[in-house]
């Protein structure tokens, strides 16, 4: 018997495989981009002008060029330099570098929002520059930027779909494969759409819950910022 969704039920295994790959990719890239972002944010506020220059070049280059172009460069370009990567690793690198630039800007804005008095107090207590950052400034800054970081995480999960174009077998890739194998476009895409909504909608609810918790007075007001990632 043939019914709507049969092709999806029959191939649920590969779709779930893709769903798991999307989750794994997102988690690894989230940690990597957070690490990159914090390091670059600290570089961009460093007293050494040269570090600020490198940080700025990194952030502006990766934020102002398309992720697809970066993914092509990493996956098809690096083998020319003798670095052969499988799609998962290449995809993770491209996604982390791209998102890291956004994380860096977000964390930097968090650091800049901490009153200077905090630095002054820490320095007068005898903490060094690195200690001040690590023990006083960063813990407060990261707490403030938690909701925007959550929004970046959502954007990153969505951007991970782009990696199917370099052959990373995540959810979108498996959906495309199902479509080209069965020609059941509507069924395949309905399944993929549900897969992404399962990931992004709870994250979005989580972020607005967090916003309300960290800043109760500004609850329920939509942000002017949009989702520019």
């Amino acid at each position, binding site marked *: 018997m043939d019914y709507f969704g049969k092709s999806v039920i029959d191939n649920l295994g590969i779709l779930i495989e893709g769903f798991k790959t999307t989750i794994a990719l997102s988690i690894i890239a989230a940690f990597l981009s957070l690490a990159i972002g914090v390091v670059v944010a600290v570089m961009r506020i460093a007293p050494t002008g040269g570090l600020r220059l490198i940080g700025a070049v990194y952030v502006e280059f990766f934020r*102002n060029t*398309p992720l697809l172009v*970066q993914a092509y460069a990493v996956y098809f370009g690096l083998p020319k330099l003798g670095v052969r990567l499988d799609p998962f690793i290449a995809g993770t690198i491209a996604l982390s570098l791209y998102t890291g630039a956004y994380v860096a800007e977000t964390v930097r804005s968090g650091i800049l929002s901490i009153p200077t008095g905090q630095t002054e107090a820490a320095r007068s207590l005898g903490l060094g520059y690195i200690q001040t950052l690590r023990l006083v400034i960063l813990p407060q800054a990261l707490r403030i930027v938690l909701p925007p970081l959550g929004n970046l995480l959502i954007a990153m999960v969505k951007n*991970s779909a782009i990696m199917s174009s370099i052959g990373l077998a995540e959810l979108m890739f498996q959906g495309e494969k199902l479509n080209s194998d069965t020609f059941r476009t509507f069924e395949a895409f309905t399944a993929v759409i549900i897969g992404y909504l399962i990931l992004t909608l709870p994250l979005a609810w989580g972020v607005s819950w967090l916003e309300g918790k960290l800043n109760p007075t500004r609850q329920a007001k939509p942000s002017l910022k*949009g989702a520019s990632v």
Partner: protein
Amino acid sequence: MTVGNEELVKSDPLVVPPRFQISWPSLTGWIVSVAVLLALVIPAALNGKWEPFTLGTTWTFLWQGLWVTLQVAFYSIIASMIFGIILALGRVSPLKIISIPSVTYIELLRALPSYLIILYCFLALPKIGLSLDALWLAVIGLTLYTSAIMAEVIRAGILSVEKGQLEAAYSLGLSPLTTLAQIVLPQAFRRMMPSIVSQLITLLKDTSLAAIIALPELTRQGRIIYNQNNNVLETMFVVAMIYFVFCYALSLVSRKLEVRKHR
């Protein structure tokens, strides 16, 4: 830091390292980082296969792609603004039959990858009898996604206009529609401009996704060039720099508007 404190802080080396002063660690930092950047750039420049970019034909080919990219971005941003206004007004409408579909549309489309939406348009629209040019499929896909985000930006702009403005307009005898068109929207748009420009940057970058539906835009043209010349990194660098020029210029505009807003 208050103005009165500034003198005190500057004279105290313990507190904050003074900024515009040449110190040896700072100078060393500059030299090291410029050296690092040059060490990355010079070997790439010398060993790369740059000959294709000395030919006029390559640049004509890229220019054709850029023109398609700019067209897609232009049509999509205009259409997204129009649908965004409609969706935003729909969302704040008191009629449930209008507001519920608007909210559902905005929340669902915002939560999906734009890659998925473009590909879905490309594969599904011909199946329901709409065979369009790839350019229009890309515009439709990007508009479906961007209008949902625009709607939220516009709604935030509308809600940011103070209530007193509405009350004043009504007490002057203006109709709700006139109030919206002449009082609320002009003020809302001025506040939304930085967000709209940064969304335009995202849109411009997202047009590259149309490469997967075989639209000959900038990224697609770049792929054709590197497949012919076997120089992926060089071509992708040039293509990235073309996007960069436009996006960076827009980001400067957005920053300028942001400063003006806070004045």
